[in-house]
Every structure is written in C-alpha cells, then in structure tokens.
C-alpha cells in the first residue's frame, strides 16, 4: 500500500490530548509515525499542511445516499464523493430509500455497493418499523448483525407513542441508538416552511415549531422511561434545545445533532430568495431566537454533533412551485466551510469543539472507532484550511444534485484534504480517483 506524508500541519485531537505542529506519516492504512521533520524520501505522496489544521477524520451521521432505488438523485459513488470533497471520512446513510432499508438483505446490498464504489466509509442505518410505516417493528436484530449503526424512520417518524416505546425497549437490548426526525405530522399540517411572520407574509402554509417540540418532549420522556438512547435529528427550535437540555440534566439518555443550515439561516431566507425551493427543508429553518438557541447549544455542549441531513433531489423535483417542491437540501460539500465561517471564526465554538462535534462525538454516537491522531490508529484524517476564501459553486460539486441555498456564498475556511483508510481521497476540494 502507498505511503503518504502530511507535512507541517497543526495536529489537533483533543480526545487524545494532541495539539502540536508535526508531520504525519501514513503507511498501510494506519498512522505509522508522528514526528518532527519526518523524511519524505521514498514517500509516494506529500500533502503540504503548513499553516493548516490536521484533525481526526470527520463523520456525518445524517446523510441520504438514496440507494437503493433513488439513484437519479444520488448514488453511493457520487454521495461519498461529495462526502470526501466536503472533508468527511465516513457517513451514516438513512434508510428512507425505495424500498426502505428495513431488512438485512437490503443492508447487505448497501454495504456491498459501498465497498465497491464508496470513496469513504458508509454505515447504513435501518428502519425502526417495516417500511417505516410506523406499525410493526422491522428486523432490528438481523439488521444489526448485518452492520447497521442505528435505527430511524427518518422522514416518516413513528407517530404512535406505544410503538415508539416498544421500539426503544427492543433497540436497547441490541445497543442501538434510535435517531428520530421529530415531527407531529398533524401539527405540521402540510406546511412548506416555518409557521410565523414570514410564512404569513408569503402566504405559505407554515409548520409551527411545536410540531417538532411535542415529539422531542415525548422522546425525552420515553427515553427516561425506557433507558434507551434516543438521538434527536436536526434540532430546529429553541424550545426543543431547552427540552433536550432539561432531559440531559435529568439524566435522560438523549443526544442531539444540529445542521449547518439551522445554525446559519432563518425563515427570512425564503423571502430573501423569493420562494427559491432550495430554502425548503424539513424541519424548516426558523426564527432568530431558534437559531440563537442552536448556537448556544453548540457552544455549551448541549448539542452533541453537527450533521448535514444531506438530502439530494433532482432538479425536476425542485424546479416547481414552492408548495409542490420536495423538502431537503444538500449539505456535505458546504458543512465544513459553514462551521468554520459561521461558528469558529466568530468565536462561537473553538476548533477543539469543532473536532469533537464533527469527529469524535459522532463516531461515539454510532458506536464506531473514533478517528484519532495517534500512531497505530487507522489513517482517517481531515485537513482544514482555516484561511481559504472560496465561493460555493454548483458546477464544482461532486454530488449528483445541487439543491443548496448556499450557491454563490463566499466562505472563509474549507476542507483541504481527506484521507480515508490511509488513501488520499481529496486535496484542495478536488476528489481523487
């Protein structure tokens, strides 16, 4: 296997007490040596990292790879190319595919394609209920044996409280986390954006924040009742953050992720962009106080990790009337830029927090070995360029879909290189191979 030298960067791995300028020699898929002025003689490839930050590889636990069945939106090859371009060494993919990933055979199919075509690691998640219909439990144990890292009915959340309670009790014995897209569909009422002043001015049906909050409250309480690990996906509202903070203080086994769009945007964007459907996602971006609560939660540690909810859609599904457009935006290729530009540069979180939120903690949540900058560890590494000023361009994206509201944004900070299993997969935002 080839060798790689990452030279002169600032190594930052708070979980292992690493913060030093050093060279990293990668050989045979692992970090062979960390030291000063390591020789590049005989090394196949050198990544210049002077002035850059070398971090344990980033992991996104909320990605839609659309395989099987919706490969016209994204497939495992393009989705993982987008991941490594965005600085991620691994992704957990959601089971709301066609058919739903609710059995071991489909899990194995995803794993097989990922092994053949993936640019990075892919960890499938499985459905909670058969077909994500919210009625009968899926074969959770069989799927665990086939390699799933969590269960979720993302997008079609379990409505029945008793079904959810039993699913939690059942999942707990397999040590599986339940990831929940918290939405009471009755309260959401077919809305297309956040319910509030802006939806009122635009004459669009709104989804009140309570549509998320009542399910968050239910989940926190059921987690206390059952002891099962519930993970709240893409938190969007102030009261949801407060409910989770309360639950954690009460000892509930609850964790939570936030997306770059929820910590960056508010519902004003729908008006500013004049009904552009790339502002339509579920849960929707909400008001300034909601965004602030998410920033506070990221700063004080209430929020465990950053995940993108990368949700590619075909242009034909987005170039329609707002109400008719699909929910969701892509996120893998803008996440690191937004985290640096919007969170690290303004001092909302530190670089150390960024590494925990995007690498160490998400790995722990899905129960995989956390990437580490120590000799002998698997070489899953993300190199960051904190000073790079760049413009988000649709035509440069590796994803099959370009449905993001951030096209045209100028950001400071970018992923510089991605190393997956010892192989350089991306440098200067260009995917290799």
């Amino acid at each position, binding site marked *: 296997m080839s060798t790689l030298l990452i030279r002169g960067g600032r190594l930052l791995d708070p979980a292992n007490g690493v913060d030093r300028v050093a060279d990293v020699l990668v050989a045979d898929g692992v970090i062979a040596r960390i030291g000063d002025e390591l020789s590049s003689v005989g090394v196949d490839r050198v990544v210049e990292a002077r002035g850059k930050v070398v971090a344990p590889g980033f992991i996104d636990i909320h990605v839609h790879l659309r395989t099987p069945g919706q490969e016209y939106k994204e497939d495992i090859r393009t989705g993982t190319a987008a991941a490594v371009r965005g600085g991620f060494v691994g992704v957990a993919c959601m089971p709301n595919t066609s058919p739903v990933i609710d059995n071991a055979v489909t899990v194995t199919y995803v794993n097989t394609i990922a092994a053949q075509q993936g640019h990075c690691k892919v960890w499938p998640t499985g459905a909670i209920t058969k077909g994500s219909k919210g009625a009968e439990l899926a074969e959770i144990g069989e799927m665990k044996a086939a390699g799933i890292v969590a269960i979720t009915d993302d997008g079609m959340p379990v409505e029945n409280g008793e079904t959810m309670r039993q699913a939690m009790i059942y999942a707990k014995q397999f040590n599986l986390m339940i990831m929940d897209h918290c939405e009471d569909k009755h309260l959401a009422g077919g809305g297309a954006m956040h319910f509030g002043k802006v939806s009122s001015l635009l*004459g669009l049906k709104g989804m009140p924040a309570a549509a998320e909050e009542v399910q968050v409250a239910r989940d926190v309480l059921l987690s206390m009742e059952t002891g099962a690990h519930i993970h709240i996906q893409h938190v969007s509202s102030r009261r949801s953050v407060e409910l989770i903070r309360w639950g954690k203080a009460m000892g509930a086994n609850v964790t939570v992720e936030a997306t770059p769009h929820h910590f960056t945007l508010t519902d004003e964007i729908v008006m500013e962009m004049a*009904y552009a459907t790339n502002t339509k996602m579920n849960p929707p971006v909400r008001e300034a106080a909601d965004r602030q609560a998410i920033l506070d939660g990221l700063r004080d540690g209430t929020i465990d990790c950053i995940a993108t909810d990368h949700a590619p859609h075909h242009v034909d599904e987005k170039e329609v009337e707002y109400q008719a457009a699909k929910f969701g935006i892509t996120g893998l290729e803008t996440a690191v830029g937004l985290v640096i530009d919007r969170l690290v540069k303004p001092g909302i979180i530190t670089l150390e927090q960024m590494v925990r939120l995007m690498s160490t903690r998400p790995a722990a949540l899905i129960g995989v070995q956390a990437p580490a900058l120590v000799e002998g560890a698997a070489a899953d590494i993300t190199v960051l360029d904190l000073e790079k000023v760049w413009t988000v361009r649709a035509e440069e994206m590796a994803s099959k879909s370009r449905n993001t509201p951030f096209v045209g944004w100028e950001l400071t900070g970018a992923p510089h290189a991605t190393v997956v299993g010892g192989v350089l997969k991306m440098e200067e935002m260009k995917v290799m191979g």
Partner: protein
Amino acid sequence: MAGLKRKDILGLREMSTEEIDLILDTADALKDIVNRPIKKLPTLRGKSYVTLFYENSTRTAKSFELAGKYLSADSINIAVASSSVAKGETLVDTARNLEAMGIDAVVMRHPMGGAPHFLAKHLKASVINAGDGMHEHPTQGLLDMLTIRQRKGAFKGLKVAIIGDIFHSRVARSNVFGLTKYGAEVWVAGPSTLLPAGFEELGVKVTTRVEEALEGADVVNVLRLQLERQEKALFPTVAEYSKFWGVGPERLKLAKPDHLLMHPGPMNRGVEIATAAADGAQSVILEQVTNGVAVRMALLYLLLGGGDAA
C-alpha cells in the same frame, strides 16, 4: 406617461408608492372607456396575453379579458381542466410553450403562494399575478385602493377595517401591504383561528372583536368566507361565524356614517355580509368591479404598451 420599470406584477408588498400612484392614475384615466358607447382603444393592438387559471374564477378572469379587449389586445383563456396540465405538464413547460407562441404576458391564478414568482423567473414575458394561494391578489388590492382613493381622496389616516378570514385571504394581504405604505390605519378582524401570525409587526391592528375594528371606520372591507379553503375545523359552523363576525346594518352603525362598504366578491349573502348592507347606500361593491377593469387596463397598458403606446 412613463411605463413601469418592472417586468412583472407579483404583489403589492414589493411595490413602491410611486409605482402604485402611477397605476392608480393610469386607471383613473382609462376608467371612462368602460362607460363609453364605443369601448375600444387601439393602444395594445398587436399585443397578446393569456389568462392561465389554475383555480376557478369568473370575475377576475372576465375582468382581465375585457380589459384587454377594450385596449385591442388579443387574449386567450386557459382553464386548468381544459389544458395539458391535466396531463401532468409542469407550470414552467406550460408557460414556455405559450411564450413560444409569442404571447407578451401571462395573467395567472394559482393555488400555491409564490407560483407567479417562480414563473416570472423563467419567462421573458410579463407575469401578472391574478391571485396566488393565500399570498397576494395585487389587482384586487389595487382596485380596492382605487375605489377608496376616488371616494376619500387619500389613504393617510383612514381607518380601514378588513373583516373575515384573514389567514387564508390574499385579498387581505394585498390590501394590508398596499394601504400601510400610505399610512392608513389598517385593522383586521376575524376569529382567532383565521388571523395570521406577525401582522402586528407591519403596524396592523389585529383583533378578534369585529366591533373594535368597525368603530369609527372609514372603510369596511368584508372578505368572502372561503368555505373551500377551510380544510380543518377552524370554526364550528357558518351560523356561529355569522353571529360573531358577520357584517350587517346594526354593526355598521359603529362605522362612520360616510363609510364605504366593500367586498371582493363573490358574496355569501347572509353569511359574512347581510343583504341589507351589501345593497345599502354605503355599498361600493359594483364600483369595485368597474374599477377592476380599469386597474387591469392600466396594468396591461403599462406593462405591454411601453413608451410607444398610441
């Protein structure tokens, strides 16, 4: 007369008072054509437009059609049931096909808010919003404003009470956006389940008590109870609605004696408005209809006539 410096008429929220003044002045100048024996000006000869209606309409569609005919434009009308939309064609494809046939403007009514904005991005032709979902109905807002201006002279300081289902009403939104720009005191009143969020931030007074809104009002605009839009249990019965929020002669005694009574039509007599009020001395409901033709003539003239109008 200078033309409008915009391609499309999507809503009153994004328009300036200068633009609205120009439209209303133009409508005033064109209005008397409606009452002439020979109702025809050659102004828009050789121009064509389509009325593309994804929702039923009689008044607005026919008003646009006549407005164009009085100015010698050619128009065709497409209703959703008779179009290829029923065969699954997208909005953009439908409009691009019409544009390829050479039309200069699309007048569209659509059940989804923002649909005209979406269309306008994709067409070189002008787009006139004839009502988009719960969002705006700018030509109705303009004709209401024209009616008020003709009778009251100006908008500043007038108390305008808009009564009914504000939440679902594009008419209410266009009136609110237009009138507040001129410093009118706009009140909206209706059941709490039919009041929209955030209107207070526009300087609008919001109340559930219809009497409070009517007290000393110069203008009373009663909205149609859109029974077809009531998908959930937002009020128990039409009878209860009528009892608490219906407008009739007794309640109208709270308004100024010289108030104007308006309604965008079609009326549900005995529900949101009593016949005695609708047909009473203060009613300007049919004037609104005439002004509707005038406003639509003005918009077609300003958008299609350009600088080389006859």
